[in-house]
């Protein structure tokens, strides 16, 4: 049997995780879209981690003290008028985005919902990506019947429309808390990434360094984790970012319709739902509705920019090369 030299057993690119990280961060800094997306994301992360630094007004209680309201009611009754003390309209500098119909501070709600929204999005996207990678790479690497079965399951989940399925499932999981949303979102979203990663897995399956690892007698899990994964890292990151874009929009859409809103915690989707239900626009609380909507769009854009940039990084053909002479001449 031929002796395989040490250098031949190494994958061609991306050796250690640290190298990969260095490569990725270099690529981010070189790409304008990626830089902008990253700055937007870091800003979001800061707000999510330190909401009280930005807005210390409590988000889940009325900014008008209870005794003020009862005083108002007593005064109205004493003057023989209809007590109309439910909604105060506090002035601009103190409450820049106004208040909700129960006198909660809108700015504080948006700020404090950042953590739950971002946390749920990242958690769902991580789980989805993990399932996609597991199913996609297993199907591609093991092949045969396993591949046929996994590919079929993937195809089925791809074809069943996700939002209707999500809505159906969420009606049964009422009261399940934020965990229920994470569960149903994860279950319905992994197929697209799995198919992409399977295709990529198939293309590197026959590469020499994998052959070498097999000849060395490495176990399949070692080969998948140590030999295949580093080579697919940029694709896995791209899958994660693509999923995040989708999750941000879908979760907010689901909650906007009134499904998957959890009682004691708040997300931007829940805010939009509550504002819509209370007819925020008609009652003059414009920012109660618009602030969380813009926040969702902001988060989606941040992930989309990173995703777009990563596509360019993972696929060198898409990189900006200026005008190509061939096209102009034609």
């Amino acid at each position, binding site marked *: 049997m031929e002796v395989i030299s040490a250098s031949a057993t190494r994958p061609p690119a991306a050796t250690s995780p640290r190298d990969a990280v260095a490569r990725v961060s270099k690529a981010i800094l070189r790409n304008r879209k990626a830089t902008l997306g990253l700055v937007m994301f870091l800003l979001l992360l800061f707000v999510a981690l330190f909401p009280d630094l930005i807005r210390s007004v409590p988000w889940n209680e009325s900014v008008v003290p209870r005794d003020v309201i009862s005083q108002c009611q007593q005064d109205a009754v004493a003057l023989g008028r209809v007590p109309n003390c439910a909604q105060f309209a506090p002035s601009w500098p103190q409450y820049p985005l106004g208040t909700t119909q129960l006198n909660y501070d809108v700015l504080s709600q948006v700020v404090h919902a950042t953590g739950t929204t971002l946390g749920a999005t990242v958690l769902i996207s991580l789980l989805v990506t993990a399932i996609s990678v597991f199913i996609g790479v297993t199907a591609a690497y093991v092949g045969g019947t396993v591949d046929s079965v996994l590919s079929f399951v993937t*195809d089925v989940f791809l074809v*069943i429309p996700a939002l209707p399925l999500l*809505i159906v499932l969420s009606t049964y999981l009422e009261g399940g808390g934020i965990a229920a949303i994470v569960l149903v979102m994860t279950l319905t979203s992994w197929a697209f990434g799995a198919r992409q990663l399977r295709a990529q897995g198939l293309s590197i399956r026959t590469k020499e360094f994998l052959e070498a690892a097999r000849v060395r007698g490495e176990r399949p899990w070692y080969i998948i984790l140590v030999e295949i994964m580093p080579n697919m890292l940029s694709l896995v990151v791209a899958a994660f970012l693509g999923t995040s874009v989708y999750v941000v929009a879908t979760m907010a859409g689901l909650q906007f319709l009134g499904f998957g809103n959890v009682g004691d915690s708040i997300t931007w989707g829940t805010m939009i739902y509550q504002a819509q239900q209370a007819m925020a626009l008609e009652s003059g609380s414009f920012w109660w509705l618009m602030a969380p909507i813009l926040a969702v*769009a902001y988060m989606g854009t941040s992930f989309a920019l990173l995703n777009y940039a990563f596509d360019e990084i993972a696929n060198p053909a898409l990189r900006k090369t200026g005008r190509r002479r*061939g096209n102009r001449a034609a």
Partner: protein
Amino acid sequence: MRFIVRRMGLFLLTLWVALTLNFIIPRLMPGDAALAMWSHIHNATPQQLKALEAMFGTANQNPILAYIAYVGNCLTLNFGVTTDQVPVMTKIMQGLPWTLGLVGVSTVIAFSLGTLVGMYGAWRRGSWSDNLISPLLFIVTTFPVFFLGLVILLIFGVELQWFPQNHPYSNPPGLTLESAADIIYHAVLPGLTLVLTASGGWIYTMRNNMIATLSEDYVRMARAKGLSSWRIMLNYSARNAILPNLTGFAMQVGFILGGSILIEYIYSYQGLGYLFYQGTESRDLPLQQALFLLYTMAVLVCVLVADLLTAWLDPRTRDA
């Protein structure tokens, strides 16, 4: 031929999985589903509880027999009655034309627009129009559907009042020219929202695929032969680049159908999406289940059509 048979097999198998999923989900959930659903109905009657129990098969029914009965009912399009005692099919037939018209026309416009813009973007890659349009539309696509819907409604419906804010028509529809104009007038805003959300994905994939095919040898060969640039663009590059777009078409249809639920809700457009929302809100399970099946069926048919088109455009897939 073998290709077509295989695709038909996948079609039937997927349909069966969707059917079965629809049967299993309510039964897997903890607690007495029929009772839970019944308690959600306003002014519920004992008959409704009986109807729900019959549906869930909780009344000491053999699950296998219940399953067979369920599949039989689905195949004969007998979906039972809604909780307000109207046959499900009647309600569906009322909503179907509106959704079919709105979603169908919007999808065709979005696909053509997306493919053409993507093609143009790749052909004139790096020009100012490509640098402006491609990222702009891509960003618009990533906005949540309801965001676009609400913003468009706010600007053109509420502020400028150029278009109606809700409902598919103002006068009862008829077969007159005015009625048709009225219906189109009402469909503009929801249609615009759908086109904007749907076309971006196609632009993006078409542009990327076209960039890849433009650097292929057969395109260089065609250039060397001195073929006209139109012919190279359409017959050589675009014909190959459009294939993945067709495959992605079906998935996109599922996405668009999901989006249409949100859009019909925002614009109170009484199509299937609105019906699905109402059915879920009021826990009208027979309605919800039938619509879910219909949505899956629609996507499946699109997959099949896309597969057949792919086989026609790309001879290589025929014997795969």
